[in-house]
């Protein structure tokens, strides 16, 4: 489906990360700015990936919704890449004593579990994994909903001011509610 657009999608997803990473390593961006930005973009991409199914169900005949759904895998992998950059900056910056101390807090435990789930999903986001895992692939990738909750728990518990995290949690609730509503409409009770 529109294979010529694939490089453009990848470029759109990768360029911001390349730009902010370069500016962090060699330019003016401070650690806090980098960690906040990569974390937020990861969360936004995750919400976008989650919104693609209800969008497709709401506009079943629309070509753009079908095209968007076809990009979900790339958006999901990009969300993982931003999350990995977010975590890498934290690990590179902090002392191990601080990391160990942080790891015992619920805010960081939720972040670590979310990242582990993200990693499992990213590693299996390819055709070979779909063939190999068969029915288990779909079950595994449903964990994105758990990861989404954990991401926002991590954000809310570690933020200085959690209001923005609460706004995103409201967004997640809306998307999940929308998805459930569309799925119920598609499969009426017997």
């Amino acid at each position, binding site marked *: 489906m529109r294979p010529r657009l694939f490089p453009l999608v990848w470029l759109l997803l990768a360029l911001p990360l390349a730009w902010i990473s370069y500016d962090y390593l060699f330019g003016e961006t*401070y650690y*806090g700015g980098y960690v906040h930005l990569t974390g937020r973009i990861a969360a936004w991409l995750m919400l976008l990936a989650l919104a693609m199914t209800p969008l497709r169900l709401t506009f079943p005949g629309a070509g753009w919704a079908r095209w968007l759904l076809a990009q979900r895998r790339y958006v999901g992998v990009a969300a993982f890449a931003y999350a990995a950059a977010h975590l890498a900056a934290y690990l590179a910056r902090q002392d191990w004593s601080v990391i160990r101390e942080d790891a015992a807090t619920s805010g960081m435990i939720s972040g670590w579990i979310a990242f582990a789930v993200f990693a499992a999903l990213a590693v299996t986001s390819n055709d070979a994994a779909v063939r190999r895992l068969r029915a288990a692939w779909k079950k595994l990738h449903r964990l994105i909903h758990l990861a989404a909750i954990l991401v926002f728990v991590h954000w809310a518990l570690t933020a200085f001011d959690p209001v923005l995290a609460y706004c995103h949690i409201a967004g997640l609730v809306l998307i999940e509610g929308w998805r459930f509503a569309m799925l119920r409409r598609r499969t009426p009770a017997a």
Partner: protein
Amino acid sequence: MRFGILTAFALCVTVAAPAFAQGSLLDPNSATQQQLAAVPGLAPLAAQIVAKRPYASPAAFDAVLAAGNLTPQQRTQVYLRAWVPMNLNTATPQDIMLIPGMSTRMMNEFREYKPYKSIGQFRYEIGKYVPKTEVARLEQYVLVPK
């Protein structure tokens, strides 16, 4: 709401201690005995404070004031006027928590961004959370060695 509380706190501190807002915190390591004695609550301890110099950290100074029977509230009032400059890269949580108006969350933010390479970095990182007036207030308690 928390942002509003912080702003209100910054305004109260600014109104209550105009000398502080002008960047005139006394350094107990270099202030004269007379200057220290002029700080409310410190008059009976001024000679002792001078005798026990130098103070490596705010916690070391705090220990002397606590031994002089100043309550935590009285010590907080003292820190609106006199303070041992705190190296952001070596400060302990105990040091940071002595800053008047400090919260555990803000203390964690102070620590998260270590090591600081410049005071500009401190302004940027902490400025993400509180208004400039509050950053300026907090800045008077810290230093980044060059």
